[in-house]
């Protein structure tokens, strides 16, 4: 690993780039929600309030850190960085500039599935470690919800891989050049992926684990200051990560028409394609999230097991037959 790779992983298009993208995503989320509700949204922090998530983050880091008396101190204090690491590592496998990601192997998707599972596992551990009443109820719901959406999400991720005949994300992106987007090949898989990622992100209509009106702030109830800042940042980073994953797997990611022969200019154009697609997916998720109300946990489990799992199996069958 040479110096350039380290810079790529840590600064651009790696960690720092995605963290700033996460802040922008949270701002867009709040602005879109506000606009859809007829409000204005954050206005004072920076131009049009774009620095609002940054202000929230730095305010939280400057506050007093409270560790509950009966909590598991080790997990409670050291868990949030690991929770943050899950989507942060996942983003390295997604091509942002050019058609190749920083790190690319023939088994990318298996690792991505591990990252998604690890993220939920860390949420569960953090919730149990804080030993609060609301956290415990919330984790029960989280595990049940995870057991419901895991299979459809997995099958939805597998179908574009089958269509491309490749498990590497860079390979899947390269298979989609010339507008052979997999959203036209596996439309049902795309829909299932979006619905399942809403459940993975704990956003409405699947915000059952942190239902504000029922169980306080869910498994985040006992967190304050720095751990909370990490947890909130991880939530927005997961947002970006899942949008980028959807854009790469189904909308072609960075793939698009080649306009120039100059490498640097073409890299910029690839980045523009990627950002347009990511923000398109992001806006779709914001709109769904704002428009829908929360379902009960049994309704969610019902939906995932009796509707989305058969649909994604059907999609997988169709893709295998068409290949």
């Amino acid at each position: 690993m040479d110096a350039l790779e380290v810079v790529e992983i840590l600064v651009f298009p790696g960690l720092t780039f995605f963290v700033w993208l996460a802040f922008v995503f949270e701002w867009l989320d709040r602005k879109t929600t506000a606009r859809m509700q007829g409000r204005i949204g954050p206005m004072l922090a920076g131009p049009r309030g774009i620095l609002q998530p940054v202000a929230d983050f730095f305010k939280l880091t400057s506050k007093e850190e409270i560790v509950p008396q009966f909590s598991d101190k080790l997990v409670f204090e050291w868990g949030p960085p690991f929770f943050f690491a899950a989507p942060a590592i996942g983003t390295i496998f997604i091509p942002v500039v050019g058609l190749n990601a920083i790190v690319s192997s023939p088994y990318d998707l298996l690792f991505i599935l591990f990252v998604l599972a690890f993220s939920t596992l860390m949420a569960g551990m953090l919730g149990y470690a804080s030993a609060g009443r609301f956290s415990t109820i919330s984790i029960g719901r989280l595990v049940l919800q995870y057991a419901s959406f895991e299979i459809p999400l997995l099958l939805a991720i597998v179908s574009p891989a089958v269509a491309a005949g490749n498990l590497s994300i860079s390979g899947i992106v390269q298979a989609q050049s010339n507008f052979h987007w997999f959203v036209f090949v596996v439309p049902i898989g795309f829909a299932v992926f979006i619905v399942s990622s809403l459940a993975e992100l704990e956003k409405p209509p699947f915000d059952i684990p942190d239902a504000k009106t029922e169980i306080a702030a869910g498994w985040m109830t006992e967190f304050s200051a720095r751990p909370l800042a990490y947890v909130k940042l991880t939530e927005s980073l997961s947002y970006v990560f899942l949008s980028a994953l959807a854009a790469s797997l189904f909308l072609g990611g960075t793939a698009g028409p080649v306009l120039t022969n100059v490498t640097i200019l073409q890299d910029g154009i690839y980045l523009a394609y990627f950002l347009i697609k990511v923000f398109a997916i992001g806006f779709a998720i914001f709109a769904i999230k704002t428009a829908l109300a929360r379902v009960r946990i049994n309704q969610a489990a019902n939906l995932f097991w009796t509707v989305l799992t058969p649909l994604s199996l059907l999609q997988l069958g169709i893709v295998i037959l068409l290949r």
Partner: protein
Amino acid sequence: MSYLTRWSRKRSIWVFPVNAASCNGCDIEILASLTPRYDAERLGVEVVASPRHADVLLVTGTANSMTRGILKKIYEQMPEPRLVVAVGACALGAGVMRGCYNVGHGVDKVIPVNLFIPGCPPRPEAILFGILKLVGEHPRGQVVAKEQIGKVSTTEHEEGEK
């Protein structure tokens, strides 16, 4: 305190509202200050679901013997730096119930209060004014005039009342 800390604390105010034996009038006005007409989120205000996340405790009601302990406990659960705002006549003294044997006489008898917002109930403009005052922004200053704070208390609204 660094510039960044001061700026972020001024721009990000997470509020945890508590109803300490209030009649719900003030709570509805607090809700109204979050609705499209007033939209407290413009100022960076967010209502959070847990006192551990909060910077500001918005207390309504007289804090009688039933809610006094709960109020104290919630205050102790908040991380420093924490601010308390007493909203409405009941939270300031006992409002219309002053002198009754069975009511508390103000939130400041239970926990330290940083800001009092009078009114029965206070208007949403008053609540926004209080929040801005709390973080050291004058509502008639340039920053806020630019962001249409003036819009919420224009003549249009006054005419609607007549």
